[in-house]
């Protein structure tokens, strides 16, 4: 097995370099410069960037299944939201008696809804390691069961996209209900501490940003390792010709389930990092539109490039921040137009197009190989000999 470092290409190094620089520059500019100075990065902006990076992890996870295996999931937001809820439940339990009703065990919404005791599935979430485990396990398990049923029955293409969409929609409806015991409509919010640190504090926010950047780098490395291994080559083979891959003896459903599950876990981590920085998780995170937006990020950045997916997420969300500030009603039109324009004029996305341009320039510099259609001498000779 080639060591992981040698499997990172040039764009990968640039990406990791930018992330490393962000981990240093952003905290320094936030903590050491005076508010009002030209270089100062306000704390709200640190969290905003942290949010973008969490979205970038989601985009990366989606690219792993869509870009490399052709699984167009329109429900990845569900895994993101489940990871977010797992983190949200931990943060709720950390409030303790500081809630409005002062109940030491029950979160405010439960007191309000006349809960007498904590529902069984809330137990354990006061412990961070358990909650962190659930951030991976809950989305992973859902993806495993869902994937196992769907891929074993050979559901592919549009049908698969539709059922992933149905999955996230069903979850949204379920989480909207008050008797789910997860805060219903309002979701989980009003967080106080994470691991004993005030979530509102400047220092905590900076640390959360850095952790998100590190998680993004780690997610990239995991995805890169997977896609450059023989496993990744089989994924691409499945994407391009699934039945051919089956005739080669690969049990394609197993590969898809594994990729889908790992991807869902990554999306869960993204959601878990998103929640403390945004301060709320509610059922609207399950909205099908969110999952579709994530697909657009990947398409804009370039599917099947990993780095492009992350870049697309950051760029589109930055544009969204700018535009919703200036013209709130125009955003959905802009997003739709963006998708159409990218599909028509930039089908490989930003990074895909750049790599192609550079690649073809280099190829032209190289000597031409044998022309296609030419019969190799070894074969031609043998053919004549018969």
């Amino acid at each position, binding site marked *: *097995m*080639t060591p992981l470092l040698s499997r990172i290409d040039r764009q990968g190094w640039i990406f990791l370099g930018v992330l490393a620089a962000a981990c240093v520059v952003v905290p320094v500019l936030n903590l050491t410069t005076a508010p009002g100075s030209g270089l100062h990065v306000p704390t709200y902006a640190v969290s905003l960037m942290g949010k973008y990076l969490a979205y970038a992890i989601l985009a990366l996870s989606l690219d792993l299944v869509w870009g490399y295996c052709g699984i167009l999931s329109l429900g990845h937001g569900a895994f993101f939201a489940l990871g977010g809820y797992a983190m949200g439940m931990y943060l709720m339990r950390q409030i303790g008696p500081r809630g409005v009703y002062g109940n030491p065990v029950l979160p405010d919404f439960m007191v309000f809804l006349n809960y007498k005791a904590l529902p069984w599935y809330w137990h354990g979430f006061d412990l961070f390691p358990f909650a962190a485990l659930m951030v991976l396990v809950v989305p992973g398990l859902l993806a495993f069961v869902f994937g196992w049923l769907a891929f074993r029955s050979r559901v592919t293409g549009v049908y698969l996209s539709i059922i992933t969409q149905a999955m996230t929609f069903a979850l949204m409806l379920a989480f909207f209900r008050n008797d789910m015991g997860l805060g219903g409509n309002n979701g989980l919010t009003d967080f106080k501490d994470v691991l004993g640190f005030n979530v509102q504090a400047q220092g905590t926010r900076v640390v959360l940003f850095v952790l998100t950047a590190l998680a993004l780098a780690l997610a990239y490395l995991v995805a890169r390792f*997977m896609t450059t*291994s*023989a*496993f990744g*080559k*089989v994924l*691409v*083979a499945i994407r*391009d*010709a699934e*039945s*051919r*891959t*089956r*005739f*080669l*003896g*690969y*049990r*394609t459903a*197993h*590969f898809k*389930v*594994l990729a889908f599950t790992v991807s869902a876990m990554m999306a869960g981590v993204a959601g878990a990092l998103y929640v403390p920085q945004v301060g709320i998780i509610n059922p609207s995170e399950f909205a099908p539109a969110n999952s579709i937006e994530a697909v657009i990020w990947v398409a804009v950045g370039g599917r099947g490039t990993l780095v492009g997916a992350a870049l697309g997420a950051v760029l589109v969300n930055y544009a969204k921040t700018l535009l919703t500030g200036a013209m709130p009603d125009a955003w959905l039109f802009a997003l739709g137009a963006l998708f159409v324009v990218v599909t028509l004029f930039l089908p490989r996305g930003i990074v895909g197009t750049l790599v192609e341009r550079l690649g073809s320039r280099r190829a032209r510099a190289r000597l031409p*190989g*044998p022309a*296609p*259609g030419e*019969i*190799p001498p*070894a*074969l*031609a000779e*043998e*053919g*004549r*000999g*018969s």
Partner: protein
Amino acid sequence: MSAAVALQPAPEAGAPAPDKRLTSTLLYVDDIKVTFDGYRALRGLSLTLMPGEMRAIIGPNGAGKTTMMDCITGKTRPDTGLVMFDGRHDLTRMDEADIAQLGIGRKFQKPTVFDSHTVADNILLALKGPRAAVASLFGWRNRVEAARIDAILETAGLLAHRARPAADLSHGQKQWLEIGMLLAQDPKLLLVDEPVAGMTDAETEATAALLRRIARDHAVIVVEHDMAFVRALQCRVTCLHEGAVLAEGSIDSVSADPRVVEVYLGR
């Protein structure tokens, strides 16, 4: 026959089990019938193939040639009948991946290679060996020596193209790459569907030579329309018609058979 097969336990991998084979034939196809929406594609087809044998299958369109391949490789399940491989595996109850892992390789009529992979990676994916998902993340397939792949590419005449994306190959080269992938699978039986369709005469000759070389140590079934090509294969010929065997024998006896002339070759 079927009852005996149903009682047959699945062979244990690894341990040198006693020879439980029911026949010495490599492939034993007995009276298979397939119906698609009322259309009887196969009407009691029977065929046997000895280990190491090469066989050409001819017949008019709709004779059931491709459906027969589908039944052997698990794509289609026959309504009735028996397909035994190596005397002990009932192929009608296995799926595509299982059958491929038993050692049956298939080349499709339309060349299907993995376009976005390089020529070398196409061979790498085909190489015989464990194919589990987790194994392919960490396992030996990540450490295959280039020489092993190059040896196969040499045979397929594609060594000079190893680093090119398969999408860039010509039609004929794609056919050879697919045959190279079959070689990499090192199957006991190769099924080759119309390998020379759309090839130039020179490419056709080269392909016949390649298949003859492969047939030295593999059993091969070739479906083909091109009679000059079939003759060049120098092997036994089976002519199918309306989902059953019409005639079988040497190329000369089959092409002289009046019924074959009637339905297929034309007068």
